């Protein structure tokens, strides 16, 4: 009996409110991610191979840029090291988001085959469980590759470092990662309604990351407006990187927007959170 009392005391201790939920979610995420890492390690050779492949395949994007520069000296007014700077930041931010919650694009499949139900009977937030689903360390390949290209850019470029510019570097990577995470979450939320929408989601996530590897000047103004004001990917690297590189801003935006990335990231995450709740609620009322 004493055991039962203690057990229920522990059970009720889960703190209510948003901070409590976040803590619970992170805990569940950690528990599940570790299980996936251990599952992967059951096939060590395969893990090494897929990690290397991930590194190599994602690197092909940069090889493509290198090939272009064998015949031109600048792209959209940017030199090779400057493009590498954009590329590295985009890959790093996207790579981190992909590493952390990239498997959320599989949600539609879980809805279709009914395995989402097995997550709904667990005492942990569903978002955390879905985010940790199929956690794959091989995705470090993209992160590593992005970091290497960024390293190359930083050693080659002659940037006049100031306090704000230095501060902007980590802020950019973290905010960028958060913005991409919110795209993953919102895309997954949409899959509650349209279960075969993972390709649409890929267009925004992988497509967006590739877009950001090139300077804004090479794209049509309307597209640039779209990724600034509608789906604010421009805040991942274009705007803050323009500040660091001392380049003119796209769309003649004011100078301070370079520092708006964290705010944009917070807003995106909040919106994605709302979308997730709506999606999950619709699933629980329709069952499909």
């Amino acid at each position, binding site marked *: 009996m004493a055991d039962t009392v203690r057990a229920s005391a522990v059970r009720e201790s889960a703190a209510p409110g948003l901070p409590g939920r976040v803590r619970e979610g992170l805990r569940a995420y950690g528990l599940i991610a570790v299980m996936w890492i251990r599952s992967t390690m059951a096939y060590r050779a395969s893990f090494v191979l897929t990690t290397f492949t991930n590194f190599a395949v994602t690197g092909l994007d940069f090889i493509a840029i290198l090939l272009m520069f064998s015949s031109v000296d600048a792209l959209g007014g940017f030199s090779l090291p400057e493009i590498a700077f954009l590329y590295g930041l985009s890959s790093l931010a996207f790579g981190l988001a992909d590493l952390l919650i990239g498997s959320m694009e599989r949600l539609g499949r879980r809805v279709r085959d009914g395995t989402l139900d*097995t997550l709904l009977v667990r005492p942990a937030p569903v978002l955390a469980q879905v985010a940790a689903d199929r956690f794959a360390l091989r995705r470090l390949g993209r992160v590593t590759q992005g970091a290497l290209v960024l390293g190359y850019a930083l050693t080659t470029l002659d940037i006049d470092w100031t306090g704000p510019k230095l501060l902007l570097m980590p802020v950019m990577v973290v905010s960028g990662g958060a913005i991409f995470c919110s795209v993953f979450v919102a895309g997954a939320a949409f899959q509650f309604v349209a279960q075969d929408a993972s390709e649409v989601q890929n267009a925004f996530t992988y497509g967006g990351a590739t877009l950001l590897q090139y300077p804004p000047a090479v794209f049509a103004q309307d597209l640039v407006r779209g990724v600034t004001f509608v789906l604010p990917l421009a805040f991942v690297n274009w705007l803050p990187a323009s500040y660091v590189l001392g380049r003119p801003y796209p769309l003649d935006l004011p100078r301070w927007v370079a520092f708006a990335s964290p705010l944009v990231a917070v807003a995106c995450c909040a919106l994605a959170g709302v979308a997730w709740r709506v999606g999950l609620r619709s699933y629980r009322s329709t069952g499909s």
Partner: protein
Amino acid sequence: MTGSESGFIELDGVEKVFEVRKKTGFMKRERRRVRAVDSISFRVARGEMVGYIGPNGAGKSTTIKMLTGILTPSAGRLRVAGIDPSRDRRRLAHRIGVVFGQRTTLWWDLPLVDSYRLMHRMYRIPDARYRENLDRLVELLDLGELLDVPVRQLSLGQRMRGDIAAALLHDPEVLYLDEPTIGLDVVSKARVREFLRELNAERGTTVLLTTHDLQDIEQLCKRVMVIDHGRLMYDGPLAGLHEAGESERTLVVDLERELPPIEAPAPARVVRVDGPRQWLAFPAAESAAPLVARIAAEYPLVDLSVREPDIEAVIAKMYAEQADRAVS
């Protein structure tokens, strides 16, 4: 305690309406409302063991999903241990165990015990309690030798036992089983049933199970609820169900060639002929052996099989009887 005497599980006029969109052409969709569960009310007392049966698409799974908090009811009142499942899903999760017969929750590539360790931490089960429960479940479900085996190497029956143990580590007060014996061989079925009986008797765990296998019900449940077209058709002892639908078994025989219907001793009779294959119905209570011997002696028999009465047949008979009663 929160669960009042009247019922541990309580449903009052619970409904679930789905809006189904069907493609009727390019970009054209037709909306249709489907009443998957239609005003169901019942109570299950603490420690009861109830069979919940019905044909595919009758509303069984939908009911279970509402009871576990996966789905929100469209109307009506629903309580499990005093908790409203859809509102307090995660609090309820600590008090219920769920086994989905066809979807394992075990970790495919990891040793069985790793899945249990995850449950230990996810449900925050106190260490001593976890060890005690694991030891007991390992003993009762005979999992000792399997703990260190990767789940992908387990047989279907072993995996089902593993899944049942995983659902019980946190001492749930109620266990939902969705088709727990589906696809299992006879020995595995018997073992699972034996375990459920002991669990119910020793721990007083309330058990609600859905199944297609009438034998599950016969051997486990004193009380049966039959659902069809979203409505509760029957709620009472199993004996009453048998009365409602006097069941027959079917003998399927493959002959060497096409022949006129087999002349079988009454009450056995041929109900269907399709080329060299014939179907014979005979009372479920009788042995098939004399019938088989007779046919084997007089006809060129190639192969045969016996089919148990299925729930669909029993329910079909129930309908017929109800119609009769309505007429008289």
